[in-house]
C-alpha cells in the first residue's frame, strides 16, 4: 500500500513538472495530431478531480475523527492531485487547438491553473496541516469554491451562457416598435441568438467565431471571413446554413435546433442588402426584399408575443364563488389574469348579479350580455370596468342615451350593438368620444345614407353593418305542406295546409285547375268529402310564388271484409300483409318498410271478399314508382269478378304508363274503371317489370312492384 502511494507520488511530481512546462510555454508549443486526441480526453478526466476533491476535503468537515482516520482517505489524497493534474494538463492541450476563444475560456484556463496550484500546495503540505484542522478547513473551502467556479466556466464553454439557469430565467422580450426597429438589434441578432448563440455568443466563441456584435462578426473566425457584404452566396454564414445536414461543416450542428426556411431567407436578404447593423428597417426602400421580409418577421413576432396585462390575477376563490351556470366566469387561458364573463338565461338576470362582479372589476376584459334585460344603471356600472376590451350588448334594450356612458371605457376595443334601439345619432355621439376599433351595428334602424355618413366620419373604426337589402333578393317560396296523414277516407277528411314562412298566403283548387292568387285562399283546415285532387301554391309579398303541390284524396266506397293472398309478397316486404291494403294509409313514399308490400319474383295475386254483392265501378291501386330503387309500375293489372267464388269473369286488363328516366319518385295511383258489374269477390293480378329498361344503370335486372292500398268503388 505504502509503496503504491509512493509510486503515485512520483508520477504526480512528474506530471506537475510537465504541467508547469505547458503553462509557461503554451504560446510556443505545436501539437502533433495524436496529442490532440489526448487533449480531448479532458472532458472525461474532469469528472474525477471534482468528485475526489470534494470528497477528501469534505471529510475534514465531518466531526467524527474515527472516520477521518480511515486508511482509504490516505489513498484517495494521493490520487486526487494526480487526477487534478491530468485534467488540467489535458485541458491545456485542448486549449492549444485554438478552436475556442473568448473570456470564458480565459477564466476557465487560469482558474484551472490556480486550482492546480492551491491543490498542489494543500497536499504537499498536508503533513504540516494535519494537526491544524481550522486552517485545513479554510484552504479546503477555497479549493471547493474554485472547483465550482472553474467547472461552471467549463460547462458554459460546452453548453452556452444560459444553460444552467435557463429554465428559471424569465425571457423578457421587449416590445418592438416597427418604426424604430434596427436591422441588427431587432431582427438579425434575435434570430442568430436562438439558433447560433449557444456556441458563438456571449463569452463562447467556438471556431473563434463570435456573433456578439458587428466588430466580431466582420472579423470572422478560424475558417476566415463570415460575411461578404452584398454577396450572400460568398458569405460563410449563409453557406454553412445551406450545406446538407449530413455535411460536417453544416451549421448549426445537426442535432441542434435548425433555422427555418424563412429565417434563412431573412439572413440571406440581410447579407445581400450589405449586412446593415444600426440602420432602421423603415429607412430602407419599400420594395427592398430585406425590408419586406424583416417587416413580415417583426409583425409575426409582435403578433405571437403574449399579451401583457397591467393587472394581477383575481382571487381564484372569488371567481369560483361568483361562477355559476348562468354567469360563466373564465380566465382567457392558463396563467392569464384577464377574465371573460358571459351571462346566459335572461329570466335569471338582474342588476345585482352584475354588481356582484365587483371583486373582479380589474380583471374583466370581455363581457357578454346578449339578450339580457339590462337597464341604463347597469351600463353605468359597466362603464366603471377599467380594463374592459370586448362588450357584447346584442339584442339588449339599450338606447342612444345609455350607450354614451360607454365612452368612459378607455380600454374598450370592440362593441356589439346588433339588434338594439340605438340610432345613427347615438352611434356618432359615442364614436366621437371613444377609442373603439370595432363596432357591430347590424339589424339596427339605419338608413344607407346614415351608414355612408358614419363611415365617412369615422374612417378608422371598423363598422360592421352586416347584411342589408334582403328585399332585393327575390327567391321562390318553399312548397306548402299538405299535412294529411291519410289519402283515402270513407266519410270526410280534415286537411291542414302549412307553410314554414310566416305570412305566406296559400291558394288552392280542388277542381283540377292550377291555382294562382285568384284561387281560393286557405284560412282554416279544409274539409274534403269527395274524391279529388288538392293543388296548393304559396304567395308572399317580396317573394316569388312557390311550386304547385298536389295531393289526391280518394273516397272508399266499399269496405273489404277479407283479403286472401294467392301469390304472396316478397318476404322482405310483407309486414302487415293481411291489413295494410285497407288501412287508409297511403304510405310514406320514402319509407318502403311497413306500409308497402313488395313483389319481384312472382306476380301479386289477391282475392278481396266484400261480404255482400255490390255494383263494381272502379278500382284504385296505390303503387309506388322509384326508379333508382328499381321500383316500377307493373306491366299490367288484371281484374276478375265473381259472385260465388267459383265462376270468375275477367273484367279488365289495365296497362299503366311506363316510367322513364325522368319520372320523379313517388306514389302513383292506378285507376281502373269498368262498365258497372255486380260482384261479391274481386281478384287482382299485377305483374312486376321482368327486366329494367335499357336506360337504367342496372338494365336487365328484374324490377319491383310496390303497393300500399287498394280502394274499391
Amino acid at each position, binding site marked *: 500500500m505504502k509503496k503504491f502511494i509512493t509510486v503515485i507520488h512520483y508520477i504526480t511530481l512528474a506530471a506537475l513538472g510537465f504541467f508547469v512546462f505547458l503553462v509557461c510555454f503554451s504560446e510556443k508549443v505545436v501539437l502533433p495530431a495524436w496529442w490532440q486526441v489526448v487533449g480531448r480526453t479532458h472532458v472525461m478526466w474532469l469528472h474525477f478531480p471534482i468528485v475526489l476533491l470534494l470528497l477528501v476535503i469534505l471529510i475534514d468537515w465531518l466531526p467524527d475523527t474515527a472516520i477521518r482516520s480511515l486508511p482509504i482517505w490516505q489513498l484517495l489524497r494521493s490520487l486526487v492531485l494526480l487526477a487534478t493534474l491530468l485534467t488540467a494538463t489535458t485541458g491545456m492541450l485542448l486549449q492549444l487547438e485554438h478552436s475556442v476563444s473568448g473570456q470564458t475560456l480565459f477564466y476557465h484556463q487560469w482558474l484551472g491553473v490556480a486550482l492546480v496550484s492551491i491543490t498542489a500546495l494543500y497536499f504537499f503540505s498536508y503533513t504540516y496541516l494535519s494537526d491544524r484542522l481550522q486552517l485545513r478547513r479554510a484552504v479546503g473551502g477555497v479549493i471547493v469554491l474554485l472547483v465550482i467556479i472553474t467547472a461552471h466556466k467549463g460547462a458554459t464553454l460546452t453548453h452556452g451562457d444560459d444553460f444552467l439557469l435557463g429554465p428559471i430565467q424569465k425571457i423578457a422580450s421587449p416590445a418592438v416598435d416597427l418604426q424604430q426597429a434596427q436591422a441588427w438589434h431587432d431582427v438579425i441578432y434575435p434570430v442568430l441568438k436562438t439558433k447560433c448563440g449557444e456556441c458563438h455568443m456571449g463569452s463562447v466563441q467556438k471556431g473563434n467565431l463570435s456573433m456578439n456584435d458587428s466588430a466580431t462578426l466582420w472579423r470572422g473566425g478560424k475558417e476566415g471571413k463570415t460575411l461578404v457584404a452584398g454577396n450572400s452566396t460568398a458569405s460563410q454564414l449563409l453557406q454553412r446554413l445551406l450545406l446538407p445536414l449530413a455535411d460536417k461543416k453544416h451549421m448549426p450542428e445537426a442535432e441542434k435546433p435548425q433555422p427555418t426556411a424563412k429565417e434563412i431567407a431573412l439572413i440571406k436578404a440581410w447579407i445581400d442588402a450589405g449586412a446593415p447593423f444600426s440602420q432602421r428597417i423603415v429607412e430602407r426602400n419599400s420594395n427592398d426584399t430585406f425590408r419586406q421580409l424583416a417587416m413580415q418577421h417583426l409583425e*409575426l413576432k409582435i403578433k405571437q408575443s403574449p399579451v401583457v396585462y397591467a393587472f394581477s390575477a383575481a382571487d381564484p376563490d372569488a371567481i369560483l364563488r361568483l361562477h355559476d351556470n348562468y354567469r360563466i366566469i*373564465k380566465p382567457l*387561458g392558463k396563467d392569464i389574469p384577464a377574465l371573460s364573463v358571459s351571462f346566459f338565461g335572461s329570466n335569471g338576470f338582474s342588476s345585482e348579479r352584475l354588481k356582484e362582479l365587483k371583486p373582479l372589476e380589474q380583471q374583466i376584459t370581455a363581457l357578454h350580455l346578449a339578450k339580457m334585460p339590462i337597464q341604463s344603471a347597469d351600463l353605468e356600472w359597466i362603464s366603471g370596468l377599467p380594463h374592459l376590451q370586448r362588450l357584447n350588448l346584442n339584442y339588449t334594450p339599450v338606447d342612444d342615451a345609455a350607450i354614451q356612458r360607454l365612452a368612459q371605457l378607455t380600454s374598450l376595443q370592440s362593441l*356589439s350593438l346588433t339588434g338594439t334601439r340605438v340610432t345613427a345619432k347615438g352611434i356618432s355621439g359615442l364614436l366621437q368620444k371613444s377609442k373603439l376599433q370595432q363596432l*357591430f351595428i347590424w339589424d339596427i334602424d339605419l338608413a344607407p345614407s346614415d351608414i355612408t355618413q358614419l363611415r365617412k366620419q369615422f374612417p378608422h373604426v371598423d363598422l360592421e353593418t352586416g*347584411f342589408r337589402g*334582403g328585399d332585393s333578393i327575390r327567391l321562390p317560396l318553399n312548397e306548402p305542406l299538405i299535412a294529411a296523414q291519410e289519402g283515402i277516407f270513407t266519410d270526410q277528411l280534415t286537411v291542414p295546409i302549412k307553410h*314554414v314562412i310566416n305570412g305566406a298566403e296559400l291558394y288552392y283548387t280542388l277542381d283540377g285547375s292550377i291555382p294562382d292568387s285568384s284561387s281560393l285562399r286557405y284560412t282554416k283546415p279544409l274539409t274534403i268529402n269527395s274524391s279529388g285532387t288538392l293543388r296548393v301554391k304559396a304567395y308572399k309579398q317580396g317573394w316569388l310564388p312557390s311550386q304547385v303541390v298536389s295531393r289526391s284524396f280518394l273516397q272508399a266506397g266499399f269496405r273489404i271484409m277479407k283479403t286472401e293472398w294467392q301469390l304472396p309478397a316478397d318476404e322482405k316486404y310483407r309486414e302487415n300483409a293481411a291489413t295494410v291494403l285497407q288501412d287508409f294509409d297511403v304510405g310514406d313514399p320514402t319509407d318502403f318498410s311497413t306500409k308497402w308490400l313488395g313483389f319481384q319474383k312472382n306476380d301479386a295475386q289477391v282475392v278481396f271478399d266484400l261480404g255482400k254483392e255490390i255494383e263494381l265501378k272502379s278500382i284504385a291501386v296505390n303503387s309506388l314508382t322509384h326508379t333508382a330503387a328499381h321500383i316500377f309500375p307493373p306491366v299490367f293489372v288484371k281484374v276478375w269478378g265473381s259472385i260465388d267464388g267459383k265462376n270468375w269473369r275477367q273484367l279488365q286488363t289495365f296497362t299503366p304508363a311506363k316510367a322513364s328516366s325522368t319520372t320523379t319518385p313517388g306514389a302513383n295511383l292506378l285507376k281502373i274503371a269498368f262498365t258497372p258489374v255486380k260482384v261479391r269477390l274481386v281478384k287482382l293480378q299485377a305483374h312486376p317489370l321482368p327486366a329494367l329498361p335499357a336506360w337504367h344503370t342496372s338494365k336487365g335486372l328484374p324490377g319491383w312492384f310496390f303497393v300500399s292500398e287498394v280502394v274499391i268503388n
Partner: protein
Amino acid sequence: MQKELLDYSLQFNRRKFLSRLSIGLGSAALGSLLIPDLFRDQTVEEALSAGLPHFAPKAKRVIYLFQNGAPSQLETFDHKPLLRKMMGQDLPASIRNGQRLTGMTANQTSFPLVGSYYDFKQYGQSGAWVSELFPHIAQITDDICFVRSMHTEAINHDPALTFFQSGAQQGNRPSMGSWVSYGLGTENSNLPAFCVLLSRGKGNGQGVYSKLWTNGFLDSVHQGVQFSSGENPILYLQDPAGLDRLSRRKMLDQIAALNEMELNRFGDPETAAKISQYEMAYRMQTAVPEIMDTSKEPEDIIRMYGPDCLVPGTFAANCLLARKLSENGVRFVQLYHQGWDQHGNLPSEMRGQAMDVDRPSAALITDLKQRGLLDETLVIWGGEFGRTNYCQGKMTADNYGRDHHPRCFTIWMAGGGVRPGMVYGETDELGYNIVKDPVHVHDFQATVLHLLGLDHEKLTYKFQGRRYRLTDLYGNIVKDIIT
C-alpha cells in the same frame, strides 16, 4: 369519519396501490412534488384551471360544415384549365406514381383526364378561383382562407371520415369535438359542448354514424349530442305529456335528496355525477326549445340563408341552428351534409348539392360576422378527401364521374384567427399532386386545436397505459394561415 374511510377504500384500488408502492417510500416526498395531485384533493386553483386553454385562444368555438362523400376540388375551388385542354388524354403513369386505387377504378384500362364541366372566375382581393357552382361563397372569398393542399392517408369514405374526425382510421378514438369539449369544457353549461346536425342532399350519399361523434375513451359527457329534425330535437329531453315544470322540479329534488343519501353512505363519485347530469338535463329543457325556435328570426336572415332554413333537417336549417347554438356558447357544432360522392353523373349531381349548401354556407359566415362572432368562431368547410383528375366510368361531353383521391383536395376556413382572403398551398397543373405547402390531416387538426388555445401535444388522455392525443404522434401547426 366513517365516510372518509369509505372514500378512501373506494378510491384506493389495486392499480393505485401498486403504482404508488412502486414509487418507493424514500422518493415519495419528491414524487409528490412532481405529481401535483398525487396525495391531495383538487385545490381551488386547479378547479379553476380545468377546462382552460393552454394559452390565449384566437377562437372560442368551432362550426364544422362537413361535406360528406368528398366534393370534387376540381369543380369547386381548385381551378385546372389544363385538364380541359387535355380532355380525354390518359393520365401519365409518372404523375400517378404508384398511388393505390379504389376497387372502383382499379380495373379501368385507361385513366382519361377530364376538365371541369363548370367555369371558374376569380373573386375578391385574394383573387381566389371559385367555380360557378358557388356564386354566394364567391362573394365572401375575402373572409375565408382556402387550403388547396390538403392530403390524407385513406382512400375510402369510412376510414377517411374517421381519420378526419378522430385522428385514426380505425375508429373508437374520441372525435375532434369530444377532444375540444374535454380540453375546454362547456361555455354555456345549459347546453352540451358538442352538438351534431345531419342533413342529406340528393346526390349519391355515404352514411354517417354515431362513431364519428363518439367520446371514445373520454368521459361520456364529451360525446356529441345529435339533434334530430323531428319534433324532439334531443331525444328523451321532453317531459311526458301532462307533466308540468313544477312537478318535474319536485321530482328532481326528491331524487336528488335520495341520491344525496346514497352519496353520503357510499361516497361513490358516480352518484355525484348523476345528480349534476339530471340538473343539466333540467336546464336544457328550457335552453333547447329557445334555440330551436326560429320564429323570431328577421326576414332578412331567412332570405340570406334561403327559405329552406325553416324546413328542419335541411342544410340551410342546420346552418341557422349552428349559428344559434354557437351564439349560445356551444363549443363545437358538427354538421354533416351527405351526397357528395360523385362517381358518376357528376355535373348534374354537383349542381344539386351546391344549390343546397352554397347560400347557407355563405350566409353563416356573413351572419356570424355581423353579430361580432366571426373572429371568435372558426368555420370549416370541406370533405374527407379529393377526387381524381381522371374519369371514372363512361365519359361524355356532359357526363362523367370522379373516383376518390387522397393526394390533394381543398377545404376552406373562416374566422377564429384564420387569415382571411388567403389561398394556401398549390397542386400541380393536372391537379393530381401537391407542389407547395402540403397540409396533412394531422396538421389541420393541430392547427384547429392551436386556434382554440390548445397545444395538440399537451392535450392528452391516458388510457390503457398509453397517452393518446388527437394528432397521434404527428401534426405541425400551419402558422402561415393564422392571423
